[in-house]
């Protein structure tokens, strides 16, 4: 009679259409960039063009190693388009899950039923994480499928490692949105906090890339936790992954405590 995880199933059931849209977006970004490696990243003319650009710009974009397949995919997809798309998805989903539902007035009705607030936070977060996992699995599989034809020379294990890194930063951004929503009940705050962390961590990383004097800034940027140690060429950065998922877990716990403590829908 009672099937498990009713809120999780409902969250996924309501958003499958939008998930198809997001999947198409990721596909479009991947199919736009990845097959062009031989004509952009691996092209000597392109290298000459990059050499003529200001070094500060190259390091800010992370285009330093663009001549290799791993460097190219890291710089174009994981470091830029994939990160941007994942951030937008994480911000939108996480701000809607608690704060958005509360502002609509429907969270109140859900909480009046036989569910705990802890359950609401955990099941809805799990639904968001599931969708982010799907987008990353899709990306890894598509890139791996194009590996030979585009001449990328990527190792599958490293591809999984960079996928775990992008997933990690996306989950962290989503948990910022969940926690801010659980604390404030305001969608605007949840959106602002999640997007703010995403932008700040990207900017911090770009600044930190500028000189060795600023290198210490990397340790404060979740973006750097994910990508600074080049997981796609060098394999999993366990320290960085530990930070990403550890901080996400702390944020999730904060959200659970916060929502349990406060009045809803006022």
């Amino acid at each position, binding site marked *: *009679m*009672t*099937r498990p995880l*009713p*809120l999780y199933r*409902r969250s996924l*059931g*309501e958003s499958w*259409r939008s998930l198809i849209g997001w999947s198409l977006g990721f596909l479009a970004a991947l199919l736009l960039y990845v097959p062009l490696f031989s004509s952009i990243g691996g092209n000597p003319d392109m290298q000459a063009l990059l050499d003529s650009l200001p070094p500060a710009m190259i390091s800010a974009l992370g285009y330093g190693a663009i001549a290799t397949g791993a460097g190219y995919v890291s710089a174009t997809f994981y470091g830029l388009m994939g990160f941007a798309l994942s951030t937008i998805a994480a911000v939108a989903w996480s701000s809607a899950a608690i704060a958005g539902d509360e502002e*609509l*007035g*429907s969270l*109140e*009705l*859900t*909480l*009046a*039923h*036989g*569910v*705990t607030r802890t359950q609401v936070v955990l099941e809805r977060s799990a639904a968001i994480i599931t969708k982010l996992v799907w987008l990353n699995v899709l990306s890894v599989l598509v890139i791996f499928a194009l590996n030979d034809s585009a001449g990328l020379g990527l190792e599958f294990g490293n591809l999984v490692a960079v996928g775990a890194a992008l997933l990690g930063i996306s989950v962290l951004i989503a948990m910022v949105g969940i926690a801010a929503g659980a604390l404030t009940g305001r969608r605007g705050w949840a959106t602002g906090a999640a997007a703010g962390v995403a932008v700040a961590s990207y900017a911090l990383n770009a600044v930190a890339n500028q000189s060795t004097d600023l290198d210490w800034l990397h340790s404060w940027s979740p973006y750097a936790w994910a990508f600074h140690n080049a997981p796609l060429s060098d394999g999993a950065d366990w320290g960085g992954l530990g930070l990403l998922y550890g901080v996400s877990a702390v944020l999730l716990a904060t959200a659970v405590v916060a929502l349990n403590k406060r*009045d*809803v*829908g*006022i």
Partner: protein
Amino acid sequence: MTLALETQALTKRYGRRLALDAVDLAVEPGTVFGVIGPNGAGKTTTMRLLLDIIRPTSGSARVLGQDPRQGGVELRRRIGFLPGELRLEGRVTGRALLKHYAEISGPVAPGVVDSLAQRLDLDLSRQVRKLSKGNKQKLGVVQAFMHQPDLLVLDEPTSGLDPLVQQEFLTMVREAKNNGQTVFLSSHVLSEIQQAADSVAILRAGRIVTVSDVDTLRATALRRVNATIADATADAVRTAFARDQHLAELTITAGDSLTIAGTLEGDIDPFVKAIAAFTVVDLRVEEPDLEESVLGLYAKESTDD
């Protein structure tokens, strides 16, 4: 016997604003208890406190014998709740949405959802977001009633429903009562409460002004009367109504025919008898809004203390 619902000095403060001020309520099981009051009186606040959606600043509540905070999931499964500002969205059908709510409330007997939907004339196959406000309200009513909870907490349940459906809803409330279920409902429409409730609490600015049974309330209610009378003089009308102690603020406007207006407090019978002597072209007896009628009566009382 345990009370179905009990509050003791229940108080809720939002910053400096006192939303609910030491409210004491006691609702016997198997009865229908109405709360009326203008917007902002504290009706919704009271209900949210009972469901543990918000927590009291001080005082306590017991719902079906349990503290709402401690009762948790098991307690809320025994309650059916209809929020005052029901906003249902989503591309799912009404049936799918109700299936979801059934999963997170008490067990729903087979066929109940369909029979409730049929009674309220609700199409369950349509997407929720495309439903009118009234149809969304019906969905809300169905989800509150479908698991036949021991306690129904209904905030302005008939808002947006057309009169026929309102009558059906009131029948459902009576049936729930006959089943031994307790109903706690709010309204700002006095007549609705009069039809449904055994007792009534009047709430104003976060305080209970009075708790009384419905008959007492009816006896003191104000009505506004308007009539058009042909073939009579103003003096004759004035004389005819002079003995009616219940009629006040009588105004008579002469024209092709006489238009009379006034307010009636309590017993309507003497007025009807008196007007029967004339040729009545038009007669309207209206219940003024709650603020004017009931609250007007108690306004003095509430400012005195």
